[in-house]
């Protein structure tokens, strides 16, 4: 029995949109999909980034591909959307496939592959900046049915790449001819150039470093305020960190703590992390006080933060943020 992530019914059997929404809800079906696409690992170049898609975390196995296997350095592009489909067809590698080549039969299919059991698989590749919608499946369902009945032993599949949120949804037909869906998630993302490989792990480590620097700064601030018996601090509120680079490299959004300095129940100062990737600094935290907002930026180097308070008069001027600077801010409230 294969656990299917999504089941979908052809449009002609359903009516208005409320039902459309329901048909994407996960269910477990007894139908068997052959071959099982949900266990594959798929490596593709989207233009600049190379992505390794695979089963979700719970089902994950050892990676079949690594950046070292991706030896081809392709010219960088200004807009991945313009070349993604061509690059995917050109660079596609799949863990369970013996051979991959451009499709020679089956109108509308891009790839013809042979899996380890010798079965021919015809693949229609679709690239979008969103998840597929029901109307995308309608046409393809009919085409998959037609192809599966006309090709002797061949299996037809439609692969939907979401290059914005990095997801691969594979639509196939089970033995009963019903549609089945497998969703593969990004296991790794990297960009290879002539000089280096920039990996997802580097973004993960940068985010972790940002979390540590914030935590250390907050701890310093709390220790500096020990002598202020009328003040207390709280880290209960959170702000969501979702930087563009994190999205491009499939790094999950992260909740970051806000540090509130309170007198009684009134908040005097709130430290709100606003950005990690900014020009000229290694992160920015806004200090919101009753008299306005000041910017705090880290102009240090890796492993040695240097928090600087940006002048209220000029963004080009900064001063050290230390206990004395904090005291001035507190006294001004």
């Amino acid at each position, binding site marked *: 029995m294969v656990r299917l992530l999504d089941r979908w019914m052809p449009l002609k059997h359903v009516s208005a949109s409320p039902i459309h929404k329901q048909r994407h809800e996960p269910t477990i079906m007894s139908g068997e999909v052959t071959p099982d696409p949900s266990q594959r690992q798929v490596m593709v170049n989207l233009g600049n980034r190379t992505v390794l898609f695979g089963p979700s975390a719970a089902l994950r196995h050892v990676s079949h591909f690594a950046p070292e296997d991706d030896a081809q350095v392709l010219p960088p592009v200004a807009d991945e959307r313009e070349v993604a489909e061509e690059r995917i067809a050109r660079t596609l590698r799949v863990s369970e496939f013996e051979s991959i080549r451009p499709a020679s039969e089956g109108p509308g299919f891009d790839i013809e592959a042979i899996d380890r059991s010798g079965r021919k698989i015809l693949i229609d590749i679709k690239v979008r900046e969103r998840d597929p919608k029901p109307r995308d499946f309608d046409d393809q369902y009919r085409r998959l049915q037609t192809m599966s009945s006309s090709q002797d032993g061949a299996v037809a599949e439609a692969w939907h790449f979401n290059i914005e949120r990095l997801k691969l949804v594979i639509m196939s037909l089970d033995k009963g001819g019903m549609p089945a869906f497998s969703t593969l998630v990004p296991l790794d993302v990297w960009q290879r150039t002539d000089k280096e490989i920039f990996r997802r792990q580097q973004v993960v480590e940068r985010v972790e470093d940002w979390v540590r620097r914030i935590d250390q700064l907050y701890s310093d601030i709390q220790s500096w305020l020990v002598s202020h018996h009328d003040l207390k601090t709280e880290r209960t509120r959170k702000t969501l960190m979702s930087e563009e680079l994190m999205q491009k490299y499939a790094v999950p959004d992260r909740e970051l703590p806000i540090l509130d300095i309170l007198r009684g129940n009134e*908040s005097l100062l709130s430290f*709100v992390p606003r950005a990690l990737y900014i020009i000229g600094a290694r992160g920015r935290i806004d200090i919101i006080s009753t008299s306005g907002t000041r*910017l705090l930026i880290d102009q240090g180097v890796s492993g040695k933060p240097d928090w600087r308070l940006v002048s209220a008069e000029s963004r080009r001027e900064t001063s050290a943020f230390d206990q004395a600077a904090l005291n001035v801010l507190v006294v001004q409230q």
Partner: protein
Amino acid sequence: MSKVDETRRAYDKLASLLDQEIRKRSGTTADLEQFRRSLDVAFYLLGWAQFEYLVRKEAEDRIETNARAHTLDGHAWRYLKENMKSLSVRRRLDLLFHADAKARAALDRDYDVRNEAAHDYKIPAEARDISDWLLKLENLVSKF
């Protein structure tokens, strides 16, 4: 001072009001932070729209002036004037910033990412500080 400066002042005020709501812990932080992101994108695009209008007007003004010349170049300028509508913003930027290659290149890059921001809340790293970015636009306008 152009309208871009007024836009910057309006942004500073609205951003400050939202920040105060965050400090006073009125409403959920997630909502307030989302409002702040929406505000940033809205003013980023408004700044671009105003800058683009000023670029268009300034380029037209220069073409009009040059088209009055009774020289060989005047014919070329008059041809440009007749085809003004087909002149893209990038070509107009060429006219205004031909002596400042650095600024021209930066604007080209900015234009590439501007449309991304319009539909997907993507503000480039160079413009994460909207107030400072609007000030830069204002400074460019003052160089026209």
